[in-house]
């Protein structure tokens, strides 16, 4: 058997002994080391940069994770955790090679406690499976990334994922009470718990969104949220993007916090229409998908106020979903928006930036101008209520010169987000993709404090090297140069 590991820096004798010991820990079915098998793991949803891990292991318990991590320390080889691999920032890229620890076989729901409103789950549990398990209880797990049918709760924990309903309900960190984490030295940390206000620092809050750089999460304690009593879902149709963004600003400014407020521009709408024939007006500049939830006595009032505000800002019409089926249809088109993009272009690059919500008109105008300047087609579908934009840049990856323009345009858009007082990522993370932006967003002092924190938990830098922070003290950080934009979409 030729293993990838054998070709790497480890001597073959050492690699053989490591493989034997790993097999003893996770069993022979819990390990992949053949070139062909490893190919699947050369990238995640960020397909620009690729690198095979030397070995992938599939532990089934915390104890196994501990043993594997200890072995990596003994052999001094880097390791990186992986959930479903839907990261759009290259979070799972095994920089420096080494071991990939895939958590997908640790996917049990360990406990659901409705009286105390929490659930304890293993990290490999697929997000939507928790919601399914809760059906009929009156409770749900609130964070709903668009990738929820595939992504794992461990991955959500590591990236602090959001979703359409983040606007009202908050992101992952607002719903995590505690976690069990195998630290980079193989020790186990119990953070937070099934009770609130555990005395001490909020390490749970610090660990959410650590992008795998502080350890491997092996259990998550999540809060359960009461289902809303009633919804109203609306579709506002606008002549121009500017009108639609003004409506957003008016709605938020009027003190209404909808459950979700999503925007799709003409490019997306026409692609959706071609693909699914939902009956969208093809000549509309933009549509807003707006959902309010709450008490039955309140939702109609709120919906009426929103409709009035949309009309004031020039909405051509506001359609209301009158049945659960109509509501589902509206959400379906929102969630399938990215599937439809394939019709527009062979390749596309989804960006993820944030601006203060009142700056949406400005950033969208900038995006349009940027597209014209670089002769690129850019379409938009995004979490408008949060100011979290996802411009999608369309291109043909066989055209190297066009690819270069996409990279340039992406950088300009993210640079503009910073200039407008925003951020270069609202939910997809820094990963390897956006490392070069960190020192534009943060000062050397800010980054120094972040490095102290990383070094405190990950002093040897063996755990997820080369991620999130621009320089990686104490470990060989081979930064991967960006040659191609990402192609997948995310909403």
């Amino acid at each position, binding site marked *: 058997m030729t293993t990838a590991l054998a070709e790497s820096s480890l001597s073959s004798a050492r690699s053989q002994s490591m493989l034997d010991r790993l097999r003893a820990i996770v069993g022979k079915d819990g390990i992949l080391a053949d070139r062909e098998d490893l190919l699947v793991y050369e990238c995640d949803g960020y397909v620009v940069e690729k690198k095979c891990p030397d070995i992938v292991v599939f532990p089934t318990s915390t104890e196994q994770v501990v043993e594997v991590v200890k072995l990596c320390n003994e052999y001094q080889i880097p390791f990186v955790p992986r959930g479903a691999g839907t990261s759009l920032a290259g979070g799972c890229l095994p920089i420096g090679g080494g071991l990939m620890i895939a958590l997908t076989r640790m996917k049990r729901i360990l406990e659901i406690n409705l009286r105390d409103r929490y659930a304890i789950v293993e990290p490999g549990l697929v997000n939507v499976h928790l919601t399914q398990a809760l059906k009929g209880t009156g409770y749900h797990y609130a964070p709903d990334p668009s990738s929820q049918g595939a992504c794992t709760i461990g991955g959500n924990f590591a990236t602090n994922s959001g979703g359409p309903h983040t606007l009202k309900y908050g992101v992952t960190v607002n719903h995590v009470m505690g976690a069990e984490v195998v630290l980079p030295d193989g020790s186990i940390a119990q953070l937070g718990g099934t009770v609130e206000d555990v005395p*001490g*620092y909020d390490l749970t809050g*610090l660990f959410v969104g650590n992008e795998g750089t502080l350890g491997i999460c092996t259990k998550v304690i999540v809060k359960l949220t009461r289902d809303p009593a009633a919804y109203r879902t609306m579709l506002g149709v606008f002549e121009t993007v500017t009108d639609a963004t003004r409506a957003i600003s008016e709605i938020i400014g009027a003190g209404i916090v909808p459950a979700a407020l999503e925007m799709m521009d003409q490019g997306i709408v026409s692609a959706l229409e071609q693909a699914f024939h939902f009956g969208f007006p093809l000549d509309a500049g933009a549509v807003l998908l707006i959902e309010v939830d709450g008490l039955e006595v309140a939702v109609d009032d709120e919906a009426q106020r929103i409709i009035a505000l949309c009309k004031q800002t020039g909405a051509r019409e506001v359609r209301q979903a009158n049945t659960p089926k109509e509501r589902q249809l509206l959400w379906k088109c929102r969630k399938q928006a990215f599937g439809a993009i394939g019709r527009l272009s062979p390749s596309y690059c989804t960006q993820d930036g944030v601006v203060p*919500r009142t700056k949406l008109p400005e950033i969208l105008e900038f995006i349009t101008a940027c597209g014209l300047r670089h002769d690129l087609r850019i379409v938009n579908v995004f979490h408008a209520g949060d100011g979290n934009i996802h411009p999608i840049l369309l291109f043909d990856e066989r055209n190297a010169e066009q690819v270069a323009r996409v990279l340039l345009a992406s950088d300009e858009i993210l640079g503009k987000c910073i200039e407008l007082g925003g951020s270069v990522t609202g939910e997809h993370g820094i990963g390897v993709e956006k490392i070069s932006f960190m020192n534009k967003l943060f000062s050397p002092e800010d980054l*120094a404090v972040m490095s102290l*924190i990383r070094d405190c938990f990950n002093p040897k830098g063996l755990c997820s090297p080369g991620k999130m922070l621009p320089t990686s003290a104490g470990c060989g950080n081979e930064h991967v140069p960006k040659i191609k934009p990402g192609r997948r979409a995310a909403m």
Partner: protein
Amino acid sequence: MSMSRRSSRADALPCNGHSFQSFLQLKQIASRRNYGLSALEFTPATQLELSRYVAENAQTERRTLCPVGGRTALHFGFSAPEPGVLVSMSQLNRLVDYPARDMTITVEAGMRIIDLQRTLAEQRQQLPIDIAQAERATVGGALATNTSGPRRFGHGTFRDYVIGISAIDAEGRLFKAGGRVVKNVAGYDICKLLVGSRGTLGILTQVTLKLRPLPETSAQLWMTVDSFTEIEDRLQRLLTSQVRPNAVEVLNPAAAALIVASARCELPTNAPVLCVGVEGSRREVDWQLDVLTQELTSIGVQECRQVRDHNADRIWESLTDFQTCADDPLTFEANLRPSQCMAFAERATQLGVAVQVHAGNGLVIGQLLDEAATIDHSTTILNELRPLARSQGGNLVVLHCDGEWKVRMPMCGDAEHSWPLMKQLKRKLDPQGLLNPGRFMDGAATA
């Protein structure tokens, strides 16, 4: 070393060092009963001045630093082992940026909570966190103590609202984390780390908060119930109620009497009280009160009253201030699973403690009354309650007691599994141990 040493020694401290002096407007203040803190005080006018001062201190005098806001919670935790410098945030109290239509605000950490609330109310917005003694407490102090109140059930706590911070670490480095937008995952979320860190990891200088609209109105349904067992039954019904309460409070008669008295309301307090809060438009509030009354009142409920408008506002305030209102010997907080709270409250009631429960969140605040005015008596009561709290992963922390008692009290609760890790982080960020040393996550051995 005696942790309970009072601060009189501080008066003897020399304040020398010329460059050091140049930043200092050191002044002597009266020694403070209870706090074990020093008499030196430094009041920076800008965050830059503060950062220079802290940097200089780290290299020269190495005095310990205690950031202070409204001084309402300085007694939290153990007394400082040695006198140092009080860093008063009183002049860092400016509004930095309030783009109301973005529903975010950036303020300096020394701003009083009441000033923040007034500014927000003008735009019909709020930070929906109940903060005791709002006229005195500051944004930085409230955040550093992670303070909260009854409405945390509906609205969450500081960690749900802080989206950006600037702070100065023990070496004087001015750093920030997060930003000014409501959604942001760039870098580690140091904001969360600083919430509740009691000024031991950094001195907060600026904070950016996410805001919520002010509801049109709010109200409570106040009912006296035969027993805690009957209340537990109501709490379980509330789990699937049609209503979405913003607060679920339980009070024993002793606490209820104190709260009603301070709110100057007339409400029954002769049995355990379940008080459910709701908010929204008038219509929503009316509807919710009606439905709650139907859902909850049956045999076992003695009296049931709707509390509205001004009375409701005063009850909110009293429910928030209960944790701080004690002249009594000792106040504690236990964090439990919600399902354990009624049994705990019953036991505490038998022991003569005034008890308030944030029942939806599993937090119990207890005041030992005057009868327990000796350390031995207080210790006996706590020794009964602590194992109850610990039994399912909870804890019990003394918030307030006589300074002399502190060495024998769980001022930070019993040691948690992750404390060694937290101490490691503290050493990394404050290697010389200059920020509020000895007051947090310490003394577990004496417990």
